[in-house]
C-alpha cells in the first residue's frame, strides 16, 4: 500500500522535471512531509512514526524507479539518523520534530576533499568564547543546496568527533554549488573560521556510530538502485516490443530476449541480497549488520552499471538521449555507486569482517 501510493505520487516526477517545472524544489519536499515519509524513521517521542527500515526501503525503491531528485536518503534517512544518534534532550526533540514535519531540512557533510570515503574528519572545531570555530572543507554534500543547515563532523581535539549543525547563512561558509551527472543539486563547502554558538555542537560521537547510521542510508541507496534497475529493465523490454527492425519487433530476437533476461536476473538478485540484509538487520549484531550491508552494496553495484548500460545499449540511439528516461538510470547509478563507499571499499570491509 505504501508502495502503491508512493508509485502514484512519484509517477510524473521525471516528466515534470523534463518540462522544467522543478520537481526538485521545496514543494516536493513539502509533499514528502505531508505523506509522512520524512517522519518515518524519526522516533515516536520526537513526533515521528518510529517506522521500520523496510518502509524506508520501499520508498527508496520507488524514488529510484521514479528518478526522484529529492535528497531523501541524505536529508531524511541519514540526517534523521545522525541527529537521533548524537543530539540529546530538548534540542534532539526540536530538531527531529522540525525535520519530520519538513519545516527544516539538513544535509549531512561527512566526506572531505582528497579523503575519499574516510569518515575521520580533518575539519577541526576549536572552542571560541562560549561557542566553536570551524575550519576545513567538506565535499559532495548531497542535498546541500537549499538546505537549512549542514550536519558537520569535526575533530574536537584528539580523536574526539563532534557533530555540528551549521546554518547555511553563515558568511564564513563558502559553498560551491554544482549538479552531479544525475542532475542532483550538490555543494562543496569551505569553512573559513566559521564562528558557531554553543548550541551548534549537537553532541560527541564515534566514527563507528556514524558508520552504523550510514549503513541504513547505504541500504536505502541499494533499494533506490534496485528500483531504478528494475524500471530500466521494464522500459527496455517494452521498447523491444514496440521497435521494429528488419520487418519484426526487436523483441522477437532471441539474443535480445536473453540479454534482457540476464539483466532481470541480476536486478532480481539485488532484491534477494537486500532481503538478506534486512533479515540480518532485524537479528542485530553490529558485525553481522556491517557484513550484510557491504555484501548488499557489492552485489548491487557490481551489477548496476552493467544492467543500466545494457538498457541504454539495447535502445540504440534513443537510449543516449536525455529526453528519454533510460539513460538517466545509468547516470543515477554511476553517482550512487560512489556515494557512501564504492565496491572495492565495501568488499574490503566485508572481508575484514569475514569469519
Amino acid at each position: 500500500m505504501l508502495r502503491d501510493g508512493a508509485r502514484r505520487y512519484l509517477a510524473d516526477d521525471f516528466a515534470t522535471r523534463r518540462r522544467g517545472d522543478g520537481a526538485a524544489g521545496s514543494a516536493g519536499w513539502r509533499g514528502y512531509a505531508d505523506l509522512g515519509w520524512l517522519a518515518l524513521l524519526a522516533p515516536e517521542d520526537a513526533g515521528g512514526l518510529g517506522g521500520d527500515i523496510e518502509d524506508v526501503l520501499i520508498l527508496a525503491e520507488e524514488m529510484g524507479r521514479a528518478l526522484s531528485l529529492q535528497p531523501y536518503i541524505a536529508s531524511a534517512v541519514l540526517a534523521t539518523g545522525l541527529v537521533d544518534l548524537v543530539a540529546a534532550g530538548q534540542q534532539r526533540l526540536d530538531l527531529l520534530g522540525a525535520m519530520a514535519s519538513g519545516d527544516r531540512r539538513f544535509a549531512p557533510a561527512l566526506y572531505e576533499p582528497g579523503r575519499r570515503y574516510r569518515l575521520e574528519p580533518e575539519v577541526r572545531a576549536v572552542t571560541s568564547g562560549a561557542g566553536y570555530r570551524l575550519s576545513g572543507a567538506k565535499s559532495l554534500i548531497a542535498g546541500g543546496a537549499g538546505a537549512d543547515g549542514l550536519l558537520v563532523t569535526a575533530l574536537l581535539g584528539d580523536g574526539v568527533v563532534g557533530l555540528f549543525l551549521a546554518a547555511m547563512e553563515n558568511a564564513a561558509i563558502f559553498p560551491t554549488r554544482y549538479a552531479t551527472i544525475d542532475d542532483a543539486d550538490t555543494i562543496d563547502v569551505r569553512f573559513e573560521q566559521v564562528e558557531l554558538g554553543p548550541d551548534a555542537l549537537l553532541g560527541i560521537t564515534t566514527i563507528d556510530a556514524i558508520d552504523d547510521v550510514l549503513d541504513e542510508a547505504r541500504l536505502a541507496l541499494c533499494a533506490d538502485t534496485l528500483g531504478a534497475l528494475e524500471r530500466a529493465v521494464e522500459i527496455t523490454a517494452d521498447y523491444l516490443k514496440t521497435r521494429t527492425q528488419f520487418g519484426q519487433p526487436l523483441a522477437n530476437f532471441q539474443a535480445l530476449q536473453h540479454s534482457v533476461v540476464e539483466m532481470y536476473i541480476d536486478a532480481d538478485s539485488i532484491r534477494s541480497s537486500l532481503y538478506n540484509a534486512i533479515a540480518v538487520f532485524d537479528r542485530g549484531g553490529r558485525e553481522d549488520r556491517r557484513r550484510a550491508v557491504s555484501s548488499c552494496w557489492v552485489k548491487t553495484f557490481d551489477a548496476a552499471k552493467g544492467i543500466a548500460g545494457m538498457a541504454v545499449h539495447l535502445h540504440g540511439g534513443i537510449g543516449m538521449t536525455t529526453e528519454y528516461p533510460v539513460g538517466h538510470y545509468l547516470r543515477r547509478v554511476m553517482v550512487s555507486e560512489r556515494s557512501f563507499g564504492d565496491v572495492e571499499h565495501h568488499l574490503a570491509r566485508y572481508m575484514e569482517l569475514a569469519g
Partner: protein
Amino acid sequence: MKLAFSAEDEAFRAEVRSFLAAELPPGLARREAAGFHNKRATVHPWQQKLCAKGWAAPNWPAEFGGAGWSPIQRYIFELECGLANAPEYSLIAMSMAGPVLCRFGSPELQQEFLEPMLKGDCWFCQGFSEPQAGSDLASLRTRAVRDGDDYVITGQKIWTTDAHMADYMICLARTDAEVKPQAGLSMIIMPMDAPGVTVRPIDTIDGDAHVNEVFIEDARVPAHYLIGEPNSGWTQAKYLLGHERTHNAYLGMLRRYLARIPALIDDELCRGLPAAEAGEYRRRHARLAIDVDALEWSVLRVLAGEEGPALGAAASAISIRGAAYLLRAADLEMAILGPQVVPRFGPDDGAPLVAGAPPAAAGRTTQYLYWWAATIFGGSDEIQRNIIWSTLFR
C-alpha cells in the same frame, strides 16, 4: 518481504545438525566431500538410519512415510546435509518416483513400492531423455503397446542417471500414437531386470560413472504398473519437472564449498601458494559468498510464498545462477590447489597421486567437470532463459 526463521525452525536445525554429527558415517562424508558419487551399497546404511528417524523422504506427504516438513524445514535439512557432506541418497526414488506415486499412483502401487523406497531397498531411475528428445519431450519415441495383461515396451533412453544400479525405471513412453504428441504419453514402472532391457554405462569426462544408455526391446511389464490413467504421462512429467526445478541442493553444495575454501587457502600457503595470489583467491571467495547469500534469498523468497510474476521465473533463474556459481566455486578450488589437481583420481580412491599433494586435491576436477552438466540438466540455461522471457516479458 520478511522471512525470519522461527524458534521452531532453529530448534529443528539444531536437531538436524546433531543427528548428522552423530550418525553420518565419516567414510561416506569423506567420499562425498571429494566429489565422487557414492554407490548404492555405501549409501544404504545411511538411508536406513534416516528411515528409522522418519527423515528418509523430505519431499513426500507424511501419510506415505514422508517427513511432513514445511518448505522451510526441507530447506534447512538440505542445507545442513550439504554442509555436513551428507550424500544425496537414492535421488530418483526420493525426489521423482516417490512423489509421482504418492500423487498419481494406485493404492496397490503405493503399497508395493513406497516403503521399500524409504528403506533404500528399491532404487529407481528415470527414463525421460531419448537420443532425439532432449529438452523436447513431445518428440519421445519409446512405445508401450498393450498386449493382454502387459505393456510391451520398445525404445531407447539416454543420460539415465543411476540406471546401472536401479531396480526400476519410471519410464515415459508413448501409449497412443494417434493423438497429438503430448497427449499420448504414459508413465510406467519398468523392472530393470525385465528381459529385453540392456544398460550401457556412458563414460563421462568427469571420470565418474553415473549416466547410462538403456536399450529396451520388447520388455514386458504388467499393465497395472502404468501410473494413473493411460495417456496422462505429460501431466505427470510436468508435475515432476516442477519438483526437480525447485530442488535446491545447489545451496548445500555451495555452502560446503564456501565453508572449506578459506582453510584450503591457508593450507596451500605452506605448499608454495604465494601470499599475493592467496589474497586474490580470498577476494574471489568473498565475491562468491556475496553471490550465494543473494541466491539463498532467491530460494527463500520462493519458500516464503512471495507472489507475483517473478515466482514463475524464480526456479529458472536459480537454476542458471546456481550452476554458474558451482562452476566458479569448483574453479576457485582448482586454482588454489594449482597443479596438484591434474592427476586422474579414481572414484574409489581419495588418496593423492602427486607427492606432497593434500587429500583435498582428489575429486576437484571431477566435480568441476560435472558442474558443466548442471548447466544442462533440468533444461539448459538457454531453455531457462526462454522460460523467463515467456513468463515475464512476452
